[in-house]
C-alpha cells in the first residue's frame, strides 16, 4: 500500500510547539517560542522580514532541527521527511522551489507519480484540477523558467495541494501576487479549511489577507510570539510592537 491511499479523508492535525529555540552561530533566531494550533485551524504568523518565520516553518517540516524545545504534531514529535507518519504536510516555499527541470504539470503531479497514488490518467486529471484552482490550467506544459514569480508561487500552491495534505504551510503565499490573485488565493485557503478541515499555517506580510484567512494570528518578534489572538484582537492590540507593525502596514490605506 502506498502512502496516500486508504488513509481516509484529509483532516487537520494539531501542532504544539514548546520552548523552541534555534540559533545560527551567534544569531539567535527563535527563543523559547511557544505555539499551539488546533486541528482545522488557520493560524497566521506575521512579523518583520528576517524574524525567523521561514526558519520556524522549516522546523515544523523537519528540514531544520531545533536547538531546544519540542514540536509535536498530533502529540508525536515531528518525523524527519521521508519517515513514515500518519499525516501529510504540504509546504509552499517562499521561493516556490519548483523543480526547474520539470514542467508545471510534472511539478504538480510529482508526488502522485512517485508514490504511485493513481494511474497516469487520474494523475493528469488531478493535476489539471489543482492547477485550475490557482488559475493556471493552461500553463501545464511550460517550464518554471517561463513563468512569472507570482505564477511560480501559484504552481507551488497547486503542488502542495496535490498531495492532499492534513497540514499545509504557506510561506508568503501572496507576496508577489496582484490584488485579484491575492483574493483568489485567500479564498482558496479559506475554502480548503471549510471543505477538508485542513490545518493551515500562513506566514505573510500582508495584514489584510492574513486577517481575512486567519482564525487566530500571532506576531513573531525577537524570536517569540509576542501577541496571539483573533484578527480582531490583533488589530486592537495595545502591544507597541504589534501597533507599530500594523500602523506601518496600513499607512495611506485609510487605516484599519
Amino acid at each position: 500500500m502506498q502512502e496516500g491511499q486508504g488513509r481516509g479523508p484529509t483532516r487537520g492535525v494539531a501542532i504544539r510547539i514548546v520552548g523552541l529555540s534555534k540559533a545560527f552561530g551567534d544569531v539567535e533566531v527563535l527563543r523559547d517560542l511557544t505555539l499551539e494550533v488546533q486541528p482545522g485551524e488557520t493560524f497566521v504568523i506575521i512579523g518583520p522580514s528576517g524574524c525567523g518565520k521561514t526558519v520556524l516553518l522549516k522546523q515544523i517540516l523537519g528540514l531544520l532541527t531545533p536547538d531546544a524545545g519540542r514540536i509535536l504534531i498530533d502529540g508525536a514529535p515531528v518525523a524527519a521527511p521521508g519517515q513514515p507518519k500518519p499525516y501529510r504536510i504540504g509546504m509552499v516555499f517562499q521561493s516556490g522551489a519548483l523543480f526547474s527541470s520539470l514542467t508545471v504539470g510534472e511539478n504538480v503531479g510529482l508526488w502522485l507519480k512517485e508514490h504511485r497514488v493513481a494511474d497516469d490518467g487520474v494523475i493528469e486529471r488531478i493535476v489539471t484540477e489543482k492547477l485550475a484552482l490557482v488559475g493556471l490550467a493552461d500553463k501545464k506544459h511550460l517550464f518554471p523558467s517561463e513563468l512569472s514569480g507570482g505564477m511560480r508561487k501559484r504552481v507551488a500552491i497547486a503542488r502542495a495541494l496535490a498531495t492532499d495534505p492534513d497540514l499545509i504551510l504557506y510561506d508568503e503565499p501572496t507576496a508577489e501576487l496582484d490584488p485579484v490573485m491575492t483574493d483568489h488565493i485567500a479564498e482558496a485557503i479559506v475554502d480548503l479549511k471549510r471543505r477538508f478541515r485542513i490545518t493551515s499555517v500562513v506566514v505573510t506580510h500582508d495584514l489584510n489577507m492574513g486577517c481575512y484567512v486567519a482564525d487566530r494570528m500571532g506576531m513573531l518578534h525577537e524570536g517569540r510570539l509576542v501577541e496571539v489572538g483573533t484578527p480582531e484582537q490583533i488589530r486592537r492590540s495595545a502591544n507597541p510592537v504589534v501597533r507599530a507593525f500594523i500602523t506601518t502596514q496600513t499607512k495611506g490605506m485609510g487605516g484599519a
Partner: protein
Amino acid sequence: MRSLGLLAGTGAVILRFLQTVGEVLVLLWQAVRESRAAPRNVDKILAQMAEIGNATLPIASLTAVFIGGVLALQSGFQLAKLGAEENLGGLVGLSMVKELGPVMTSLLMAGRVGSAMAAEIAAMSVYEEIDALRTLDIDPVRYLVMPRVLASLLALPVLTIYVDVLGWIGGALVGTVNPQINVSFRTFFDNLRQFMEVRDILDGLVKAMVFGVTVAIVCCYVGLQTRGGPREVGRSVTRAVVLSFICIFIFDYVITRLLI
C-alpha cells in the same frame, strides 16, 4: 608551540578528509539500497545513460582515435628499431584495453557528465529543490543519486569498449600509413588477437565500472553538500571534477595492483 599548531592543523585536515570519505561511502550504500527501486525508475536510468552517451561520445571518439594513433606512432618507431614491429597490435591493444580506455573514458565522463551532475544537484540544493523533494517524501537518493549511479555503472563499460575499439583502429591506421612502421591492418589485428585474453578486457571493464560509480557518487555527494548561492554551485562543480580525477587515479593504481 608552532609545530603543535601545525600538527593540530594537519590532524584537522585528515579528520575532515576521513569524514568526507565516510559520508561518500554512506551515500553509496544508500544508493545501493535504493537500487531496489531501479525497475520502477528505468526511465530515469535510461535518460541518464542517454545523457552520458550524448555528452561523452563525440569527444571520446576523437580522443580515442588520437590516443591510439599516438601510442602506435611512439611505440611503432621503437619496435621497428628492434625489428619487432609486428607486435604493435598487441601493445596498442593491451594498453588501450587495460589502462587507457577505461581511464580516459572516465576522465572524459567526469569532465562532461560528472560536472553537469554536480552542477544540477548543487543548484537544486541551493534553490531549495532538494528540500521540496524531501517535503514531498521523495528521497533525493532514490530520485537523483541512484539513477545516476546505476546509469554510470552500466554506461561506462559500454563506452569503454567503444573507446578501446576506436583506439585500436587509430593505432592500426597509423601503423599502416606510416612507412617506417609499416604494419598492415591484418598483421595489427592478428597480433592483437594473439596477445589479448578475455581476462584483459574484463579487467578494463571492471575499472570502467568502478570509475563510473565513483565519478557519479562523488559528483552527487558534492552537489548535495552545496550550500549558499551561484558562486558555491560553481565551486562545487570544480571540486567535484577534481575529486573525481583524484579518485580515478588512486583507484586505477589500486585496481591494477589487485588485478596483476
